[in-house]
């Protein structure tokens, strides 16, 4: 939604100034959407050529195998994604023994489902309850549990999310449409070492009759990051 060029007039800045949004179409200033869209869009026009050149030169020198690159792209575009984390969550919902193991030792329990891997070797699962809501971020870069959630969405990598999640998580969640009551404790997990975090969301009401596979279908990526509930 942020990929179209925006022609935002100067007045928009004034309205958005309080949260730092800015826009003057006739100058170098960006508005917040422009700014965020930079996270996947700003690249100079020749970036595609440069990437191609590096891959080609390294390939011709036998330092890279392009079929390995094909496999990596295919893996994250088609095979590894939030559907993996959803399996973990659904199993925890229907199998209380598994849930206990998962919360006690996320790595071992996720390993049972063969869902460990790069950037997800050491997993910690944190449970949402009536009293506690969990939110995952990585302020220093964009650490994320690749094997269970795939590659992170642009917003997770954005400066705004990285900067704000630790200082004003409630304001951040509100932007995702999630109002957390003052009585609910919020735990923000800033991924600074090798542990990767997965939120175990609360089982939605009205899902009592679903089986494990049906439950997995209702688990969203955002609920496992902690910016949504189900």
């Amino acid at each position, binding site marked *: *939604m*942020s990929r179209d060029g925006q022609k935002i007039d100067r007045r928009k800045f004034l309205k958005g100034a309080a*949260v*730092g*949004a800015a826009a003057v179409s006739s100058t170098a200033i960006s*508005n*917040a959407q422009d*700014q*965020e*869209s*930079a*996270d*996947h869009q*700003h*690249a100079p026009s020749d*970036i*595609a050529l*440069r*990437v*191609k*050149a*590096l*891959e*080609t*030169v*390294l390939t011709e*020198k036998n*330092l890279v*195998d392009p079929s*390995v*690159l*094909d496999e*990596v*792209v295919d893996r994250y*575009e088609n095979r590894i994604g939030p559907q993996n984390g959803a399996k973990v969550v659904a199993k925890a919902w229907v199998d209380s023994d598994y849930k206990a193991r998962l919360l006690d030792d996320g790595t071992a329990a996720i390993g049972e489902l063969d869902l460990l891997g790069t950037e997800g*070797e*050491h997993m*910690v699962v944190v449970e949402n309850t009536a009293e506690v809501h969990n939110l995952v971020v990585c*302020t*220093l870069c964009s650490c994320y549990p690749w094997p269970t959630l795939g590659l992170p969405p*642009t*917003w997770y990598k954005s*400066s*705004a999310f990285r900067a*704000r*999640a*630790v*200082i004003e998580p*409630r304001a951040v969640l509100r932007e*995702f449409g999630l109002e957390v009551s003052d009585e609910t*404790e*919020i*735990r*923000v*997990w*800033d991924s*600074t*070492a*090798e*542990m990767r975090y997965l939120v175990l969301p609360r089982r939605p009401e009205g899902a009592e009759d679903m089986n494990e596979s049906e439950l997995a279908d209702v688990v969203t990526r955002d609920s496992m990051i902690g910016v949504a509930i189900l």
Partner: protein
Amino acid sequence: MNSIHDMGGMHGFGPIVVEVDEPVFHEEWEGRAYALSIGWFPASQYKEWGGFRHNLEKIPPKDYLNMSYYERWFFVNEQKAMQLGLVTEEELNNGNADPNYLMPQLEPHPDSSLGPGRLDLEINAKFENGGVVRAKEINGRAHNRLPRYVRGKTGTIISDNGIYALQDTNEKDEQPYDDPQHVYTVRFSSEELWGNASHGNDFIYLDLWESYLEFA
């Protein structure tokens, strides 16, 4: 190092912009740049992601903010390949390897004796669950994983995650990996970190190597 990558607690970046039904990669080059980071890793002389992250952090702040996520990744790979002499600028400009260019004999990849990941070692833990600790002020140009917003702050150990080699690099970007330590999860109150801008029911958790911490 204290650069723009360490942005926890900053204002001014505007709202969170969510793209509905976002693809994994927006352009083909993003996928290739990402996969290249994985695919050339054995040749890159990085021991682990710490050295790669340090190079990301050394991108000057203005450029860091002007670049997209995958552009940063690609940029540091391109730089590193040239730095090692594996490719030349001319080759990149031409888009093909120069058959007459002799690649340097690189030192054999200096394998860490320890490597990344949880280590099966016996080391006494300095801190225990429930212990109150303060994060040290560590402000050098070297790479570490201790954000500015918790330095000097007091928190409580809630778990000992076992032994991991310290991921820090030194200023020369070397990653010695010979310093296995306990890594603890530490709980900080929002009040301790953010004072007047805090919420009494918000808590922030970080995984911190033992050498980042001292008794409070």
